[in-house]
């Protein structure tokens, strides 16, 4: 009988080990999602006893601060409407979004040393305080971008090409997180969707701005494409479908095709690359994935490989067809070319500080993926510089600084084209990449390029 008693013992011990394993799975693996679940009332309860930490921009401006009085913390936002798509809001009625939600536990002092301190604070009846979030975002530039968009539907993104730091992530129209309760109905019903973060979550046909990607793919996959002469008669027949160009560009090379935004050249390059070549290029730029930002960001969408043939492939190569990307993705494409082919992971949060000002997390820039080679990036950059100096993007030119850029005027079901610009400056030694889209506003050269130029000028003037 001793043997069976022992076996019973082993069995019971095994049950407990299984249980401890499952408990670890529950608390470590599934825990964070349960803690942040909107049905979990705990976070709202914590607001009643913790002075939530500040959110501070790159220049030290406090964008979100809690006034704590009489058992309830009231969140106040500065430059509220301008930064709302990034900062988000906390509301017991409407949930939690943006960086407020992403860094909820840090801001409420529920992590690391702050957790211990706040336990003591609670025991000794002292005010509990949360940690700070310090952004890469510059609220002055964010404000400038919003002012330039001037209430029109659209978005503007400004990135540091060397690090991936996001300096502006503007989405227009926006909403006022200080007046959520009063205006919620209106925000939800507004056809302009002010609650949508167009910059990271918007889905737009990129139009000709996407030719930067097609160019990189062609240069990598088609030997001799850099020196090859193309001829543009003003249209291209693709299996019975006539793809037209704005005008007949005649004889030109790839660099000039970028500058003049020649549809015929890029559509033919797309066809020559083939479905696999085109999709491979998209993957090397990471466009099929959500950018690794601290906020929800949209992955690009493209026609599946079975449909990506002939006419669809030709239109996709010039950023039409079923291609949809976000302004953040376009800014990352420009930043990748500017940074000699290496795409840096974009980030909004520079540093997390606990309630004693101790840095608990500091961002060190990291490459996300290599989109293309330095040589190819250089060829495309020359084309983009030409586009600003004599081509379609002349509106973005700045005095004293060489700007490289590419426009787009994307056809869409809404009627008038979306105006696009993606580029960077200074062209010889790039620091900043920009992407701008203004919905149904006309041509990229006329509307988006000057706007992007002004935003770049403001950023360079501030020393970024």
């Amino acid at each position, binding site marked *: 009988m001793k043997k*069976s008693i022992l076996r019973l013992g082993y069995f019971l*011990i095994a049950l407990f080990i299984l249980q*401890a394993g499952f408990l670890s799975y529950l608390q470590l693996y*599934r*825990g964070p999602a349960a803690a942040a679940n909107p049905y979990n009332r705990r976070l709202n309860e914590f607001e009643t006893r913790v002075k939530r930490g500040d959110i501070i921009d790159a220049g030290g401006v406090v964008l979100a601060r809690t006034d704590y009085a009489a058992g309830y913390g009231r969140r106040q936002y500065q430059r509220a409407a301008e930064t709302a798509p990034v900062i988000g809001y906390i509301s017991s009625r409407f949930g939690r979004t943006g960086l407020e939600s992403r860094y909820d536990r840090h801001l409420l002092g529920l992590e690391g040393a702050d957790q211990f301190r706040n336990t003591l604070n609670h025991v000794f009846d002292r005010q509990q305080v949360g940690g700070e979030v310090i952004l890469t975002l510059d609220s002055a530039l964010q404000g400038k971008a919003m002012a330039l968009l001037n209430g029109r539907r659209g978005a503007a993104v400004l990135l540091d090409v060397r690090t991936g730091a996001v300096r502006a992530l503007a989405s227009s129209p926006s909403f006022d997180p200080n007046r959520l309760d009063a205006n919620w109905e209106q925000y939800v019903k507004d056809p302009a969707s002010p609650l949508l973060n167009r910059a990271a979550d918007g889905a737009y046909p990129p139009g000709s701005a996407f030719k930067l990607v097609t160019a990189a793919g062609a240069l990598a996959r088609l030997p001799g494409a850099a020196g090859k002469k193309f001829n543009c008669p003003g249209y291209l027949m693709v299996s019975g479908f006539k793809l037209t160009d704005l005008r007949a560009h005649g004889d030109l090379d790839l660099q000039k095709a970028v500058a003049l935004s020649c549809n015929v050249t890029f559509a033919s390059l797309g066809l020559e690359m083939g479905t696999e070549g085109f999709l491979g290029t998209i993957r090397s730029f990471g466009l099929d994935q959500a950018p690794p930002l601290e906020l929800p960001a949209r992955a690009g969408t493209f026609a599946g490989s079975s449909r990506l043939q002939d006419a669809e492939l030709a239109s996709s190569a010039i950023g039409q067809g079923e291609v949809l990307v976000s302004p953040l993705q376009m800014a990352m494409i420009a930043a990748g070319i500017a940074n000699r082919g290496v795409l840096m992971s974009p980030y909004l949060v520079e540093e997390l500080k606990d309630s004693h000002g101790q840095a608990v997390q500091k961002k060190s820039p990291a490459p996300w993926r290599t989109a293309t080679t330095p040589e190819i990036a250089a060829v495309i950059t020359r084309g983009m510089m030409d586009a600003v100096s004599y081509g379609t993007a002349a509106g973005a030119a700045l005095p004293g600084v060489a700007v490289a850029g590419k426009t787009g005027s994307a056809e869409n079901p809404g009627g008038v084209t979306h105006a696009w610009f993606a580029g960077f400056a200074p062209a010889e030694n790039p620091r900043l990449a920009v992407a701008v889209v203004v919905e149904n506003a006309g041509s990229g050269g006329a509307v988006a390029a000057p706007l992007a130029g002004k935003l770049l000028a403001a950023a360079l003037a501030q020393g970024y």
Partner: protein
Amino acid sequence: MRGDAGGESRHRRQEQVLLLISGAYLMTGMIVLYLETGRSGWPMLVAGLMTATAFFMISAFWAKSGYRADPCLLPVVAALTATGLVFLYRLDPVYGTRQFVWLLIGLGAMALTTRFLVDFRFLSDYKYIYALAGLLALVLPIFFGREQGGAKSWLSFGLFSVQPSEFVKILVVLFLAAYLSENRAVLSAGTRLTGRISLPGAQEWGPLVCMWGVSLALLIFQRDLGTGLIYFSTFLAMVYTATSRLLYTAFGMAMFLAGSAASYFFFDHVRARLEIWLNPWPYIDTAGYQVIQSLFAFGSGGVLGTGLDQGYPKFIPAVHTDFIFAAIGEEMGLLGGTCVILLFMVLVYRGIRISLQARDEFAALAAAGFSALLGLQSFVIIGGVIGLLPLTGVTLPFMSYGGSSLVANFILLGLLLNISHEAAGFL
């Protein structure tokens, strides 16, 4: 028959050192709670001190009377009850105070058990009498009982109510130990051949099948799924221990599964429990609320927990009884929860050790049965709370709020200690 005096006093000394640690643990918790509640929290300090002293006095009493039982069991139980008591005071001082009183009564019951039932062997002689008594006590609530938390398993006596099933479980183990040790040879070998497998006859089988019936009846009529499950799994564990035949266990399990499957189709409350276990989210506002609140509590706890009195375990209905483990998971985190599981593991380990050292088969089976009962009960309720098993309403031994459960478990502990005491004398 007595072991050497040096050995037994060393045991009690070890026990007292361990009790000192668990007492310090208890007082730490009480002091934290006192600091948070302020002046009005003084009863917590008193309760903490008195509890720690009571445990210590029992050990001293044993040292004086030459009691030779295992030195680990009492400190482990002290740590478990300390955790339970601190959390009950934290959740609601009213529960805490009542639990404190029941704890003293439980300790008294255990002391009496180790004093007057130290010669427990006579218990095996009257097995059919208390089998009947137990059965009666179980059946009574079906007719006269009061429903509490969906289960109709309480008998009300004006001032307080008693859950007979908590006490009957001790009788079940004793009955089975007596019965199985008597019929072990026949049951193991079998008396007749059915095909190539030898099986015992109906006489030997009868009482065991009755057990199966009682478990299912509990499950169905009292809606006490948890107790039914625990009785039955303890029964299987003891039959296996006695006979070493997995065939019986497998057959029993198959019967139990068949019964469960049938009740799934015939009884809505069984079906609801199972569906909530598989996916609670569609029932978030109704029957799944409790389970999901518990998942939130564990999620918010993380590794270290929020800290005592820093979380919101009161969002979980019935957190002081069946869901007390969720409160621990939230405020003491994965580490605290794992430690509680570890304490139960040590309890079972010592129990199995006692069973292995026991003087005869009756004692060995009883010790194995008590260990299995404690182990399985804590496994079933913790498993239910963390979502590993369907939720069944049973108490977490030594921790959940409830006098019946606490007193019964202390009596059980006393019997286990008595077996250990006897074995130590025999060695």
